[in-house]
């Protein structure tokens, strides 16, 4: 079932998909955010902009780009829209400070023209806060294209195949950092980032299901466009939905310890590694929760969650100095396994265990469930839908027995 279908839930997948849809950013909110960052992009690129000669371009990265955005925990919290402001400048002509200030100047002008609060400077980005009703803020990351240096470094470290892949390494950027000593100096040694390479890798981990989801979307919406013309953000794959559920579970579990909670990039990377193009959300969750820890490597006694597009970067680099972060990750994983397994393996689809409900947010779960199971009458649906009582149980058992008999693996009890 997809969020667009109005039929009632009949399975665990239907319920989990409804919860994932409720967790997703509402389409109206997404469009609003998109319009606003496009407006900002238009402002930066207007003829009188001080950046106009450098062809500034704004585009999302992070969960907005990956399609794994989750609703903030409370209505008071905001969506964090991560944007890259990429300008066609050169590190030979610009210092990090000059780039940061130039972008900040234009963002400030934009804010003034829109009667908004002035942007706040962060270590690497500018934060633009919108009015309360908007319920989001934008982190604008000033950047320069830096693929050549990025690829050269990959080659030097023995990752020639990655360096030769334009999708994975051809869009790397150099970013500013106001804590660095060379911040105000001309230098070639800027921090690097590769959010578009990561997104390409992430997309590659769900290529089959992404195409399938777009095809279903086109059929459902009676769109004649080719699959390639449908933007990624219009659909969600089981991997994206699973990550949304897991991030929400993490958010609720660490509501009081945000500083030490498992970070999204670790959850996303490990989940994408473990995912094997499962076609259903329940199967994706099973695979991910069973196997994601297997993708944590150990190098010289240190846990590594490798950045797939920059293998010398460890997403878990904080774990050695802050073991609580590592402990919290494994604690969270064990709890998530337990909570989702209790629902999927040990409960009927219409009975969400209290622990899972609590760790996904009671209100959100109730709202999502009610959207696919309206009214109290439907709560008893399994019995109504699948038959009831003794005969139904026996019928199900018969299927199980037949399946075992046809598989040839059956053991017979005896007495010692």
């Amino acid at each position, binding site marked *: 079932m997809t969020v667009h279908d109005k039929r009632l839930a009949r399975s665990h997948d239907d319920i989990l998909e409804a919860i994932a849809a409720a967790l997703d950013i509402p389409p109206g909110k997404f469009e609003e955010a998109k319009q606003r960052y496009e407006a900002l992009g238009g402002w930066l690129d207007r003829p009188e902009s001080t950046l106009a000669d450098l062809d500034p371009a704004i585009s999302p990265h992070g969960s907005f780009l990956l399609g794994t955005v989750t609703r903030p925990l409370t209505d008071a919290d905001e969506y964090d829209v991560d944007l890259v402001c990429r300008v066609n400048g050169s590190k030979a002509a610009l210092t990090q400070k000059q780039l940061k200030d130039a972008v900040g100047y234009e963002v400030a002008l934009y804010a003034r023209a829109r009667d908004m609060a002035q942007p706040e400077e962060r270590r690497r980005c500018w934060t633009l806060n919108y009015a309360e009703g908007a319920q989001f803020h934008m982190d604008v990351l000033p950047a320069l294209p830096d693929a050549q240096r990025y690829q050269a470094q990959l080659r030097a470290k023995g990752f020639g195949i990655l360096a030769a892949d334009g999708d994975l390494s051809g869009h790397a950027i150099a970013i500013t950092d106001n804590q660095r000593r060379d911040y105000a100096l001309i230098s070639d040694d800027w921090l690097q980032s590769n959010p578009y390479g990561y997104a390409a890798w992430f997309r590659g981990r769900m290529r089959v299901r992404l195409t399938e989801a777009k095809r279903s979307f086109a059929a459902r919406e009676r769109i004649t466009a080719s699959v390639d013309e449908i933007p990624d953000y219009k659909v969600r794959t089981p991997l994206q939905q699973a990550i949304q559920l897991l991030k929400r579970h993490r958010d609720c579990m660490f509501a009081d310890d945000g500083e030490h909670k498992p970070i999204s990039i670790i959850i996303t990377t490990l989940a994408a590694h473990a995912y094997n193009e499962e076609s259903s959300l329940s199967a994706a969750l099973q695979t991910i929760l069973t196997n994601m820890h297997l993708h944590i490597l150990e190098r010289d006694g240190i846990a590594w969650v490798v950045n797939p597009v920059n293998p010398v970067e460890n997403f878990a680099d904080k774990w050695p100095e802050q073991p609580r972060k590592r402990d919290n990750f494994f604690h969270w994983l064990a709890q998530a396994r337990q909570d989702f397994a209790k629902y999927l*393996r*040990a409960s009927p689809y219409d009975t969400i265990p209290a622990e899972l409900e609590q760790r996904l947010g009671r209100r959100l779960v109730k709202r999502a469930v009610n959207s696919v199971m309206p009214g109290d009458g439907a709560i008893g649906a399994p019995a109504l839908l699948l038959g009831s009582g003794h005969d139904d149980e*026996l019928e*199900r058992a018969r299927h199980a027995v037949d399946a*075992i008999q046809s598989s040839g*693996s059956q*053991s*017979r*009890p*005896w007495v010692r």
Partner: protein
Amino acid sequence: MLTLFEVQSAIAFEQPGLRATEIDGTIVVEGTLVVTDGSAVCDPAGPLARYTVRVELSQAYPRVEPRVFETGGRIARDPDHHINVDGDCCVTVWENWLATAKDTSLAGYLAGPLREYFLGQFWFEKTGSWPFGERAHGMAGMEDAYADALGIPNRRKDILYYLRLLRQPWPKGHWPCPCGSGQRLRVCHRAELWSLHRRISPHLARAMLVRLQPSKSEWFKEGF
């Protein structure tokens, strides 16, 4: 060597109602075991049945058979229910499973004999019959299971001889063929025996022999 971590990983998603701990070198798995109807990941109507169990696993698994106890009292404690008075479940003839299963990992055991045993109990509860049949009690059932594993008719003498051959790392070609033709193995069923030897290792054959408790006269009959 089976570790607590492996056990915890095997049950983590499959059996969320079970908990594993290590007590004096034995890994004890306790809690609620769910019997599913075999749907891919989840049964829309939930599990078919739940049993409260305690499973004792040796670190030497699968060399050492797990001991399974039904502790909730759902199953009547008598031999006809394939359970002893202390709740000790006679899940299957262990060596028969080891000799015939493709996957003898703990996950394979949970999804195989253990699930089949409790699904069988549920079926018996509902219908009074065993869905996959049952073995005779005691030694007779064991011989029956071993004969099945060897793929030969159930004759104790033949089972013992086969196992005596198979327990050797290298069964000799001049020994009498176990088919009873009177010919030497090398000119008779040598290929078949070697194929069996790959499936039933000398270690497993020795364990089967020990459990059959051959008498002295049986031991030396049909010498090589």
